[in-house]
């Protein structure tokens, strides 16, 4: 795919945003959950890779429809591995010090039942959109 002009880029942007929107508000709105795993050097060193693959396997195994993706450093380097769980219609929740046990608990309770679990890290910054 080649971007041939600024208008072209904006078209792609609209499409991409549409895709992300679909992810969030699609037919399975109340089922598709997004999980972002912080995978910068600090996260990987603390085992984020294992947690990410564990979560993918565990979600698959349970038949839970969720998108697990990697992202950069969230800044909470003291609490790696860090993951962000976005349940559609709710504000995103960040968990720190995620071990396999914790990941399992998050899947079982937060993602499946919608209950929050111990170990939440409150967000302490504002974004450029605010």
């Amino acid at each position, binding site marked *: *795919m*080649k*971007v*041939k*002009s*600024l208008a*072209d*880029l*904006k078209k*792609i*942007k609209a499409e*991409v*945003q549409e*895709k*992300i929107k679909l992810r969030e508000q699609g037919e399975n709105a*109340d089922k598709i959950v997004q999980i*972002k795993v*912080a*995978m*910068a*050097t*600090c996260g*990987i060193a603390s085992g984020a890779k294992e947690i990410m693959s564990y979560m993918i396997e565990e979600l698959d195994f349970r038949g839970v429809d969720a998108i697990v*993706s*990697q*992202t*950069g*450093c*969230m*800044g*909470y*380097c*003291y*609490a790696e591995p860090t993951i*962000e769980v976005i349940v559609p219609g709710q504000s995103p929740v960040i968990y*720190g*010090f995620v071990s396999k046990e914790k990941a399992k608990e998050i899947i079982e309770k937060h993602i499946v*039942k*919608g*209950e*929050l*679990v*111990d*170990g*939440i*890290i*409150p*967000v*302490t*910054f*504002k*974004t*450029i959109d605010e």
Partner: protein
Amino acid sequence: MAENKMHILVCGGTGCRASQSEQIVNNLKAELESQNLNNDVRVLTTGCFGFCEKGPVVKVVPDNTFYTEVKPSDAVDIVNEHIVKGRPLQRLLYKNPKNNYKVTSTAGIDFYKKQVRIALRNCGFVDPENIDEYIGRDGYEALGTCLSDYSPAEVIDIIKKSGLRGRGGGGFPTGLKWEITSKEKNDQKYVVCNADEGDPGAFMDRSILEGDPHSVIEAMAICGYCIGANKGLVYIRAEYPLAINRLKIALSQASEYGLLGNDIMGTGFDFEIEIRYGAGAFVCGEETALIHSMEGSRGEPTFKPPFPSVSGYLGKPTNVNNVETFANIPVIINKGAEWFSSIGSENSKGTKVFALAGKVNNVGLIEVPMGITLREVIFDIGGGIRNGKKFKAVQTGGPSGGCLTEKDLDIPIDYDNLIKAGSMMGSGGMIVMDEDDCMVSIAKFYLEFTLDESCGKCTPCRIGNKRLHEILDKITKGKGTEQDLERLKLLSNVIKDTSLCGLGQTSPNPVLSTLLNFEDEYLAHVREGKCPAGQCKDLLKYEIDPDLCTGCTLCYRNCPVGAISGEKKSVHYIDQSICIKCGVCFQKCKFKAISIV
């Protein structure tokens, strides 16, 4: 779906735990149980809210009510008022100190706006290996706008008006740098991204390249358009394999989309980027040394002028900017110079990323508006000093910077104020020290680093720093004299005055600033032969108090060198000539009979 109707989040950070937050959790649970609400409401312990000053903090969701300075005895009221009757408990709400209004939710508390993410806007938000996600977040729109709607001079004007200054340390106005390079007439020019992050403890450039590589690529292309270059080079240290890998993926995706290469977005502008690897020498962060290293020569600095903007890579005009500086560019174009310059202090606009490290609770990467105070950074965002110890100093600017102390906590952080206070912004390393850190050893640590990293070109830096290190070593071993302190000052000033590049000119800074702020500590070392922080091994002695020793033989059995002697149930004794001061006996003793003198 949700089995619980409400959640009560209680902060479980060190600060709040010290103020009995665990007791609050227990009391809340007990009260909920007694009212038969434990199935409807769940009590959770969270990580640090960062608002330790007003701790313990309790937040109730989904209505996001935020309570501060909660005591364990308040649990009953929270349950009765908020949970049972459904109205916020007025007396525990946070009061805005400016107007005394009570604030109900976190959104209304100024504290949560202390961090503003501009350079890190996409870090931890997008998938760095997927260009679509970057485009979805306004990615490459700034480049498109520049190419189709603005002339190079207009773009430079926007950057100049924004007040953006170089984030790599020097703080040179970015717009001006671009303008100088753009005015040079030459058939070939270069854009260089300096990703040779070398300060111990600083890792913001790596995190940006790992978390949002496209923002740097986009900004380099914009810079190329402005200065009239069609070739970009990223100079990155080989120790950053993940950043390199993600950058490579991003480069190939951008080329595939035609956002790099020939005729970008049909505007006739060509731009391509190559990666150059550095071997991780600190001095190669200096512009001229970096360029020599890229050319394949030894990474040694040369005299300026000529500046790289006149004669840089292969003798051609070259614009060198740091990763974080580039990451700010697309946002400035998209949101305007006025928006950017509304953030920050008078002469330092925008935000700065700091790598907060050392003895603070929340070690990590933070991005704050210029003009914020050190107190806010260390105590509010950083969550205070670990283990309830006392704050002693904070080192900013890495090995070129200096130490700031208690008296500097309330100065607004920006380029000029930090220099006035005897330190510098540097690339943004911020290492916090507590009462257990010995300042002479800290100065020695930084000198060890410069000693390793000096390229050896200038004699004062090569030999002078070695001598400085020897004197400091002597002092930490208790063999220094008061004359040595004078010699330290004199030699430091000679090195500063006679070195060619920034490395030598700033390498004695840690020595000078610790001498200035902690002279009594140096004096304690040379006069009394004591290390007040108890760090210098040669100056401390472990002794057994005969009144407290029970003769349990635990220390005797654990001493790795057999320096302790004594019979069972009689007082033990440490032979100082054998003792290696490992501290094992001190840790093992159950009767506090061993003390450091």
